[in-house]
């Protein structure tokens, strides 16, 4: 591609008078993208998350050993070396391979929690904010009740009731993490519900359902995406915490929290058993936090010329 074609494409994207629906949408995304990439750290965050996705997708190729079957006879608790990059654990399993496969479970937890909790919070918050009155009071008191419990304790209670396992851990985390999203969506809804542009749609004869879904929700989504991304680190840590307590993923599943839990016994002499998965959690959490900060700059409707 020559310099001119790149130049003309950029002009097409930034055009003042887009000629089609698609050009308008792409132009808008391009502006957000430029603002996002202007923040170097956020870009690093994005790269970390992309790397996580790639590692999870290609785990079978990237992992040299099995994640669940080890060499008990010859390879117990070996220190990091060329053969075993992050050493081996007490069952002779290669820790690098386990971390690579564990990335799948981390993604699994994060994505499932996000697609369960965010829509629930969004729906509860926007409906409460737009309807007001009794609906608002009831929905918000329920939210308050959920907020009153410490997150990990409530998740513990749910896992205890549902039984240990990674699916139940996901469910428990999702149930405990939607209330802040409902709060945010409600606050955003309250700021826009009396604006003239919502009044104008009411005057078109739109149903409340349509107004909430098509006019209010799109305004709440960017702050919600930011918040969910910033919460991802917390979700990973909660999942790891549940795994550590033996209530999340069950052995031999290579989940990072569970791996730290099993490495706890050797933490003084064989630090790599708990250290390597701990470091993995740290990197991914950091990645999500950096990404969230960048998204805040790129998507926040109150900043810039959106």
């Amino acid at each position, binding site marked *: 591609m020559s310099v001119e074609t790149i130049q003309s494409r950029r002009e097409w994207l930034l055009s003042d*008078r887009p*000629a*089609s629906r698609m050009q308008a949408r792409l132009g808008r995304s391009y502006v957000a993208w430029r603002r996002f990439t202007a923040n170097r750290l956020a870009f690093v965050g994005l790269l970390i998350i992309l790397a996580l996705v790639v590692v999870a997708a290609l785990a079978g190729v990237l992992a040299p050993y099995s994640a669940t079957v080890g060499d008990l006879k010859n390879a117990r608790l070996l220190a990091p070396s060329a053969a075993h990059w992050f050493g081996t654990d007490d069952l002779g399993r290669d820790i690098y391979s386990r971390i690579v496969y564990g990335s799948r479970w981390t993604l699994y937890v994060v994505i499932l929690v996000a697609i369960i909790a965010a829509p629930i919070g969004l729906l509860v918050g926007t409906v409460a904010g737009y309807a007001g009155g009794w609906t608002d009071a009831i929905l918000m008191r329920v939210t308050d009740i959920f907020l009153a419990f410490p997150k990990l304790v409530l998740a513990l209670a749910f896992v205890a009731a549902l039984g240990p396992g990674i699916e139940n851990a996901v469910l428990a985390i999702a149930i405990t993490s939607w209330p802040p999203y409902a709060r945010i969506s409600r606050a955003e809804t309250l700021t826009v519900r009396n604006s*003239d*542009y919502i009044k104008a749609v009411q*005057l078109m004869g739109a149903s409340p359902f*349509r107004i909430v879904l098509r006019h209010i929700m799109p305004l709440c989504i960017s702050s919600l995406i930011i918040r969910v991304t910033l919460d991802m680190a917390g979700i990973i840590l909660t999942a790891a915490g549940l795994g550590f307590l033996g209530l999340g993923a069950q052995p031999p599943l290579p989940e990072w929290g569970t791996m730290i839990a099993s490495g706890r016994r050797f933490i003084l002499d064989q630090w790599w058993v708990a250290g390597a998965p701990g470091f993995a959690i740290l990197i991914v959490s950091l990645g999500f936090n950096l990404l969230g900060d960048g998204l805040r700059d790129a998507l926040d409707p109150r900043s810039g010329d*959106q």
Partner: protein
Amino acid sequence: MTAALSVEGLEVVFDRFRALKGVSLEVREGESYGLVGESGSGKSTLLRAITGLAPASSGTITVNGKVLGKTREKAFYREVQMVFQDPYGSLHPRQTVDRLLQEPLAIHGIADGEKRIERALDEVGLGKGFRFRYAHQLSGGQRQRVAIARALILEPSILLLDEPTSALDASVQAEVLNLLEEVRRRRKLTFLMVSHDLAIITHMCERLMVMQNGEVVETLTASQLIGHRVSEDYTRNLLRASEGFVRV
């Protein structure tokens, strides 16, 4: 001529505050009717009560011979539309002009959307180039034109105008007023227009009503106002105020 819009003894109460105290008015078909008064006199509330945005506690509103109930039916919005005062607040910040104009058509299930949108944009003097812009890519006057296009796209017979030009600067004001005049003549619309600018009202309207504290002070014709043939002191004060500073 028959009345396109008539209001009888309309009361609007917010909590304890009586914003409208038994206001009556009659707007004839094809007429342009003005509402003047100081801030807080209830002119905007009257418009909002007609559209159903402000709750009417008593009184009747009749549109084209039909008495309106407590809630407005969908058909009502095809008869009556409104243009808001602030063009910076009345357009959705995340929607293109195209989306904004499509919404009313989608709500009312109108099929020939493409053609109507193009026609509406032409009518308000915005070419195709504006169709896929976002509100932040438009100037104040252009935004108000989009708002007018949106109000017209359902082809209403009555247009309520809530100080449609007070947020615009003088030259743009004149353009938008001329556009409104032109649209009214072409579509034979009935206007009910709120303004605190007496010059605009005398220019645009044949008859007008002066309001104060939620009550009717008097009704006049434009020529009466121009000739200062008014009977109430309040109106006289308004006229004096509109003439601007007087050096002592």
